[in-house]
């Protein structure tokens, strides 16, 4: 059975270990995963070749604004104070084995407010990995 996008999860907390609370008002989100590469093509090659250097990760999406929503306030505070948030981003609940995603400390590098006349106030966000003592990790849940 395919996984509906609404059944994916973003957990947040002050750090990765504490990232156990779900960011519930998230709308569409996108876990952008790329690989920065070095150009290794040589003269006379029949195809352009590359060598992997480092992963490039960012999380983009939207979150509905709701007064008093602790998740939004946490993200908003992190943006305003330029502090990190611990995130675990999974394509299923964390207590079910086999779900995949990433975990690490992130900065909120964008938090745009959109105010559509015929819609709901929504913030579009971008989270990018922060350089902290916590290792960025690709995660596969083991269940609980």
């Amino acid at each position, binding site marked *: 059975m395919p996984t509906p*996008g609404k059944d994916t999860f973003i957990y947040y907390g002050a750090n990765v270990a504490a990232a156990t609370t779900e960011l519930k*008002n998230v*709308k569409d989100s996108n876990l952008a995963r790329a690989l920065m590469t070095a150009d290794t093509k040589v003269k006379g090659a029949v195809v352009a070749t590359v060598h992997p250097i480092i992963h490039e990760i960012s999380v983009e999406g939207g979150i509905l604004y709701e007064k008093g929503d602790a998740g939004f306030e946490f993200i908003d505070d992190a943006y305003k104070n330029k502090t990190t948030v611990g995130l675990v981003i999974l394509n299923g609940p964390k207590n079910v084995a086999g779900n995949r995603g990433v975990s690490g400390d992130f900065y909120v590098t964008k938090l745009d407010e959109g105010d559509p006349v015929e819609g709901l106030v929504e913030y579009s966000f971008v989270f990018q990995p922060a350089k902290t003592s916590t290792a960025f990790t690709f995660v596969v849940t083991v269940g609980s």
Partner: protein
Amino acid sequence: MTSAELALAVADIINTAALSPAPAAVRRFAPIKDLARFGSVLNITVMPRRRRTVPVAKRKYQRTLGVDVVVQKVTEQDDAAVEAIDAYVDAIDNHLRKRAITGAIWTESASGNDEPYIPQHLRGMGLYTAVLQVDYATYLND
């Protein structure tokens, strides 16, 4: 909030409008059919109409609840009376747009058919019938 509760709340709000004649909206689940029951007064019926639920966030759903506000009066072919009730329906529409309902957000209103009233009722029975469809959004969390 259920459709029936919304219809009741909408009827209550209509009845707070400063209009002449003073509105006396009633929630019903079916419109009045018997022409003899209309008398000479303005009848306002609020009925639940539709319900649609869609996800708006991963753990949040928007449930659109619609009501039909049916305004009816025997006018025969009195154009001035028709015009007056037409303006009355506009005033109800404006009133609902501006008045908040706890737990529901006004999203849109429209007439139930192409014309602002049902021409067949007017031609066939001398009955002015306007159906104002009003939608409200409610929100549910998982």
